[in-house]
């Protein structure tokens, strides 16, 4: 009854409270406000070059968040905590496969995406066939990946990015924007297409919002859920590759910093952790917003640990606003 009533109200009334419930709009307004705030705190913060740099960083986060978004949309407490580990692993793989040579780019892309997809598939199998809660499964996977990273590295310096890749990520490519931003836009379009125009997308929302009904309607629930985790891993793998293009070489656990922000970006963008509604456009705005916030915190000399605390708190506050639509546990 209450759900019906809420639905009716949403459809008919237009008010400030409803406006605030439009996460995408809120995020866009916040982006502008934060940019203005940054400019006030430190003149030059909102300069074009600076904004471009922020967008590159946001693109890296946004690619990870694309996978995170899919997993969360699929519902049943879907979450992928292993993305950070996959990003780190993929950065090392990319560095070693390319080792500074442009000819290594294509193999590196294949290796990174394949490795990410592989670990993602493990997550998916653990969650669906072995019925391990996603939180536990992907946290365990993160532990495995961290151990793996230590073993692989063994003091050996990890490889370098190919020059062409660095150029793709950092130098203007088209209309003054670097390739990675175009890649991000492309991913945004593909995600929108996937979610709105493919049967797969419809099924993702269906299992995210009522798994039992989806199952009775013949949706291959497990297969879809496994592929969501696979895609999440693949996106994280791709992000790891791009990251080494941005940083030049991979450094210790570079990907760790993506776990929490990728989740925050999704929730900020209007996809509740309970799944079944929302989409990637909001997540993109969420990623930009978060990167600006991060940059402001750096500007006012808050170190990494402080930033992590603030992010953690942000996520909790967001849960209060957007997470209450439906109880997390059915």
């Amino acid at each position, binding site marked *: 009854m209450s*759900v*019906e009533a809420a*639905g009716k109200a949403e459809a008919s009334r237009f008010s400030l409270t409803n406006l605030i419930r439009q996460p995408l709009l809120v995020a866009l307004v916040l982006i502008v406000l934060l940019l203005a705030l940054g400019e006030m705190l430190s003149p030059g913060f909102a300069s074009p070059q600076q904004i471009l740099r922020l967008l590159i960083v946001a693109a890296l986060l946004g690619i990870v968040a694309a996978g995170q978004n899919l997993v969360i949309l699929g519902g049943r407490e879907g979450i992928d905590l292993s993305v950070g580990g996959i990003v780190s692993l993929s950065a090392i793989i990319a560095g070693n496969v390319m080792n500074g040579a442009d000819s290594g780019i294509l193999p590196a892309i294949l290796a990174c995406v394949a490795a990410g997809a592989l670990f993602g598939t493990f997550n998916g199998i653990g969650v669906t066939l072995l019925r391990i809660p996603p939180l536990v499964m992907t946290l365990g996977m993160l532990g495995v990946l961290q151990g793996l990273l230590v073993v692989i590295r063994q003091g050996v310096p990890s490889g370098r990015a190919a020059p062409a890749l660095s150029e793709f990520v950092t130098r203007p490519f088209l209309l003054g924007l670097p390739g990675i931003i175009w890649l991000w836009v492309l991913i945004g379009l593909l995600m929108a297409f996937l979610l709105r*125009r493919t049967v797969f997308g*419809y*099924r993702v929302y269906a299992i995210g919002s*009522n798994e039992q009904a989806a199952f*009775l309607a013949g*949706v*291959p629930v497990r297969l879809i859920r496994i592929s969501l985790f696979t895609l999440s891993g693949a996106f994280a793998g791709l992000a790891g590759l791009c990251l080494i293009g941005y940083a030049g070489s991979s450094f210790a656990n570079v990907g760790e910093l993506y776990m929490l922000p990728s989740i925050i970006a999704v929730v900020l963008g209007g996809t509740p952790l309970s799944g079944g509604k929302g989409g990637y456009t909001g997540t993109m705005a969420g990623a930009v917003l978060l990167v600006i916030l991060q940059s402001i915190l750096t500007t006012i000399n808050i170190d990494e640990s402080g930033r992590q605390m603030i992010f953690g708190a942000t996520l909790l506050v967001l849960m209060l606003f957007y997470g209450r639509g439906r109880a997390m546990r059915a």
Partner: protein
Amino acid sequence: MSNLTIRGARKAYGATVALRRGDLDLREGEVHVLIGSNGSGKSTLCKIVSGSVRPDAGEVLIDGKTVSIDGPRAARALGLATFYQELSLAAHRTVAENISLPELPGKGGFFVDRERLNGIAERYIRRFADVAGEGFSADARVEHLREDQRQLVEIMKTLATEAPILIFDEPTSSLDRSQVERFFEVLRELKAQGRAIIFISHRMDEIFAIGDRVTVIRDGETVGTSLISETKPASIIHQMVGESELAVTNGAPPAAAEVKTEAVLSVAGLSAKGFVNVSFEVRRGEILGFGGLHGQGQSAVLRSIFGVNPTDQGTIHIKGEKRTIRSPREAIRCGLAYISGDRGRDGVVHGRPILENVTPIHFLRNKLSLVRPGSLRERAAKPLSALKTRFAGYDQPVNALSGGNQQKIVIARWLIDRPDVLLLDDPTKGIDLQAKTDLFALIRSLAAEGMGIVLYSSEDAELLANADRILVFNSGSVSRELTGADRTRYNLYHAAYEAA
């Protein structure tokens, strides 16, 4: 402490009145049987006594004093204990712990007194020791027990409260003969101690074996109370049906459709959890009804055919071909459709647009991978308008619609591509009268076009008005088939209660 009187209890859920005027007079030292058909208000009255539902009007008296039962804890404090039909045991704990779960014996206000805990358990287990079967002991974990043994634990748990008033709602459904007899012996002892017992069962023989008095409820009203020794099954059923109804339906049940085509679905010797050895055939153009009291295996049969629940035994033929169905996916591919009345759980994809809600079956049956909203809208329009669905647009979230319209959306999902067999699992639960009328008009016309339809309805009037043939379920098997002029309410209840 054990005389309970309920006068004029009334309870409505929204516009639906579940109980109009419930009266009950329970005296100490008796087993009082409560009987009524589906939706008669019997379970609502029972819930009022157990404290899980608060009446809108009426009064409850214990030993002549007005009391209000505000929830299960208050009920306990007033000396009422209820055996719940849907078992409420802690699966990972032992039998002894479960028996004392309502009131764990304490030590020092914090610790559990294990000695007393086991003592209490032993006392009740001993009563059933020779009938409980293997593996039943105080320290056995409930998860390792059989269905009947769990039911015994639930019974012991109720007994262990030592409450003066005990309510048993279908306590014998999984018990075997010897267990039932032992349970009845225990009830007779309790009676002799002056306790009062409300007993609900769908087995006439049990009612006559243990009951002292019987109260019949019909259409939300208490019809009357009589002494078991002065009545007989047939007259109880007469009371449940009502004189006016007897006069009407004895005359002419609705004409059954003339069906002489081949069987589109035939099921032979099907057994699974919840039912045994069920066989039937549905022909094209026919509406086969499943009747009887709630939860006698009707839904379980439909869900097993549809591949939701696994089957242990039996064969299913669809359009003459033998099929093994392991999932709804396979069932849909075989031409089956399954519509559940629990649309919130089984049907509606919450918060999503209507378009997304009507399309999943179409995608599957046509092996599509891309969505073309334009063509989808066109395809969905036909079944939606056939059902007279009222909605603003395909992008409207489904939850903005009324319950009846939501259910129509779910039904339309199955009709975009015509199935061969429609399995309806109490499809009109909680929808308005107009929506019901629209739905049954459509179902009849689908049958006329050659679909085979299985209709389980917990609303007896609906079943009698729409089914060409009715299989009455009792304890997981078909107790009787009603055809032609036999499709009367009297026969339905008679078979549902297995009256002698």
